[in-house]
C-alpha cells in the first residue's frame, strides 16, 4: 500500500467520523428522525475489511449501524444523507431511513433492523452467486449481539454445509445495546462459536486498520478462493451510545476513556505522522475540507432535495409493471 492509499484511508475514516457527527447534529435539529445508530469508534472495521474486498462487486449486507458500510461500498454520500432526511433523492427514496439503506447498483444490499436477520440473507446472496457462477463473495457485517439469535447458528450450519462463499464479519463492540457481552453470552470470544460448524475463523484488533486489513485480506482470499465461509471477529468499541437515545450510562467512564485512547483515526494518524506522510497542518486541512464538503455539498443537497410526493405513498408495495404471465 503506497502513501497515497494510506492518506486516502485516513481521509475515509475521518470522513466517516465527520459524516456521523453531522448526522447527530441533524438529528438534534430534527432534520433526521426515527432511530439513528452511529459508527464513531468502529471506522476501521467496515473501511478496513471492504478495502480488502471488491466494493461495488462483492455483495455487502449489515444491520442498522449501516452508514459507513454503505459509503465504503460506493454509495453516494449525498444519496445517503438525503435518505436520512427522508427525501425522494435518498438511496431508498425516503422510504427506508437510517436503518434501511439500499444501493443495488453498488451491491450494497441493505441495512436491516432485526438483529441477526441479515445472516441468512448473506448466505442467500452467496447461494445466488454459487448458482450464477463468478468469483464474487457475500460479506455480512453484524455485531456480537446478533450471535445469540437462532439465525446465527442456523446460518453458520447451512453456510458451512453447502460451502457458501460468505464472509461473516463480527464487529464485537462488547455490548448488545446496553448489556455487556459477558452478561449475555457464555463464550465471549465470538470467533470460537463457529468452531462446531467447522468454519475457519480469526479474531483481531478492530481499532488498528492495518491489523484489520491484514486479517481481512486473508479472510477475503479464503472465501474467494476456497468458496466457503469464513468468520472474522474484530474487537472494537463504539465511542457513542447505541443510538441517539442512549447515553451509554451503563459503561464505566474509565472504560470509555481507555477505548478513546484507541480511536482508530488517532492510531492511524499517529502512524502516518511517524512515517512522515502527513503533517498536523495537512491533517487539519484535510479535516476542514471534509467538513466543508459535508456541509456545502452533502447536507445542502439533502436540505434542498424534494420530499416524496404524497400521492406516491402506496408505491413500491408490489413491483410496478412486474411480470404477470397470466396476462400475456
Amino acid at each position, binding site marked *: 500500500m503506497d502513501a497515497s492509499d494510506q492518506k486516502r484511508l485516513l481521509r475515509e475514516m475521518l470522513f466517516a467520523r465527520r459524516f456521523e457527527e453531522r448526522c447527530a447534529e441533524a438529528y438534534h435539529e430534527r432534520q433526521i428522525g426515527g432511530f439513528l445508530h452511529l459508527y464513531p469508534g468502529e471506522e476501521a472495521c467496515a473501511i478496513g475489511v471492504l478495502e480488502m474486498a471488491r466494493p461495488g462487486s462483492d455483495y455487502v449486507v449489515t444491520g442498522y449501524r449501516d452508514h459507513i458500510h454503505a459509503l465504503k461500498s460506493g454509495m453516494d454520500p449525498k444519496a445517503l444523507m438525503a435518505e436520512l432526511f427522508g427525501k425522494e433523492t435518498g438511496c431508498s427514496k425516503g422510504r427506508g431511513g437510517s436503518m434501511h439503506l439500499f444501493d443495488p447498483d453498488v451491491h450494497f444490499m441493505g441495512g436491516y433492523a432485526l438483529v441477526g436477520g441479515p445472516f441468512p440473507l448473506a448466505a442467500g446472496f452467496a*447461494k445466488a452467486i454459487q448458482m450464477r457462477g463468478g468469483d464474487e463473495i457475500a460479506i455480512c457485517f453484524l455485531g456480537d449481539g446478533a450471535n445469540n439469535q437462532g439465525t446465527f447458528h442456523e446460518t453458520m450450519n447451512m453456510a458451512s454445509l453447502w460451502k457458501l462463499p460468505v464472509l461473516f464479519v463480527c464487529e464485537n463492540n462488547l455490548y448488545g445495546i446496553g448489556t455487556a457481552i459477558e452478561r449475555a453470552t457464555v463464550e465471549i470470544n465470538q470467533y470460537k462459536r463457529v468452531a462446531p460448524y467447522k468454519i475457519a475463523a480469526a479474531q483481531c484488533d478492530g481499532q488498528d486498520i492495518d491489523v484489520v486489513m491484514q486479517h481481512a485480506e486473508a479472510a477475503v482470499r479464503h472465501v474467494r478462493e476456497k468458496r466457503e465461509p469464513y468468520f472474522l471477529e474484530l474487537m472494537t468499541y463504539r465511542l457513542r451510545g447505541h443510538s441517539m437515545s442512549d447515553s451509554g450510562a451503563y459503561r464505566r467512564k474509565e472504560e470509555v476513556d481507555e477505548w478513546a485512547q484507541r480511536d482508530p483515526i488517532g492510531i492511524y494518524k499517529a502512524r502516518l505522522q511517524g512515517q512522515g506522510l502527513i503533517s498536523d497542518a495537512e491533517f487539519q486541512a484535510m479535516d476542514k475540507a471534509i467538513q466543508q464538503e459535508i456541509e456545502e455539498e452533502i447536507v445542502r443537497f439533502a436540505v434542498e432535495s424534494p420530499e416524496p410526493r404524497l400521492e406516491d405513498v402506496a408505491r413500491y408495495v408490489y413491483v410496478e409493471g412486474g411480470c404477470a404471465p397470466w396476462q400475456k
Partner: protein
Amino acid sequence: MAEMMYWQAILRAHDEEMARDPLVFAMGEDIGVAGGTYKATSGLFAKYGDQRVIDTPISENSYTGIGVGAAMLGCRPIVEIMSVNFSWLAMDQLMNNAAKIHFMSGGRIRCPFVMRVPGGTAHQLGAQHSARMEKVFMGISGLRVVTPATPRDACGLLKSAVRCDDPVVIIEHESMYNLKGEVPDAEFFTPLEGVEIRRPGKDVTLFAYNISVHWALEAAERLAKDFGIDAEVVDLRALKPMDRAGIAASARKTHRAVVVEEDEAPVGVGSEVIAILNEECFFDLDAAPLRVHALDIPIPYNRRLEKAAIPNAAQVVDAVRKLLGK
C-alpha cells in the same frame, strides 16, 4: 386435458419452471432425496441435482432467509415449509424481509420469492399441525397470498408465482394432495389476482377459498336439489390482494352473501369479505351477510371434536336457508 392429482400438478409446475430457468430452485425439509412429504417434488432431485433441489436442515427461519437473499439477486426460489404451522418460525424473514424489501428500498430491489405451505386441517393431526394461517399472511403488506382449490390452480398458480417479481405465499391444503382434477396439457398460468366463479347462480353468493370451495359446491348442489335455491360459488383464490370488484360484482347480482372459511372467525377472510361488501355494495344487499367458520379453539385431537370444530357443507346449507328464510 389430462386428469391429475393436486400433488402431481404442483410437481409439474416445478418441473416446467425449473426446466425453463436455471435460476429457479427448490428448497425445504425432505423435498429432495425423500421426494417431499406430499410427493410434490418427487423425482426432481434426480433430475436437477442437489444444488437446485435442496434438502434443508430443520431451520425454517434461516432457510427461508436464504431463499429471500437468493431472490434479491435474481434467483427464483420455491421454498417449501413442510406444514403451515412451522411457518410461524419463518415469519421474521418472510414478514420483515421478503414482504418489505422492495418497499424499503424505494422499489430498487425485487424479491421474487415463493413460499409453498400445506395448510388446513387434515385427520386428527392435533392443534400444532392444523393451523390455518391465511389471516396472518393476508395481513402483511407486500406479500401476495393465493390458495389453490383445484389441481389446475395448484399448477397454474405456482407457475405464475415463480414468474412473479413479488413475494408470493401459496397456501395448499393437507387434505387435498390426492384430489383429482383436469389440468390442461398446454402450458398455462393462473392469475394471482381476481376471483373465479366456480358455479354461477342468482339467489345467493357463497364466497370460499381452498378446501371451503368444495364445501360450498357441495352445499350449492344440495340447495338446488332440496330447496330450489340457486347459489353462486365464488372462489376467492387470491386472498391478498383481494379482488374487491369481483366480490362486489357477484354480491350485486345475487344480493345475498355467505362466506365459508376453514379458519376460525375472529379476524380473517370472512370478516374481510364482509367489510368489503359493506364498503362496496351495502345497498345492493337484501340481507346482512353471514359467515360459516371454524370454532375459535385450537383444533382438538379427538375425531368427533375435530369434526365439530371445522365447518362443513351442511352448515353452509343451514346458513343459506337462514339467510333466505327458507
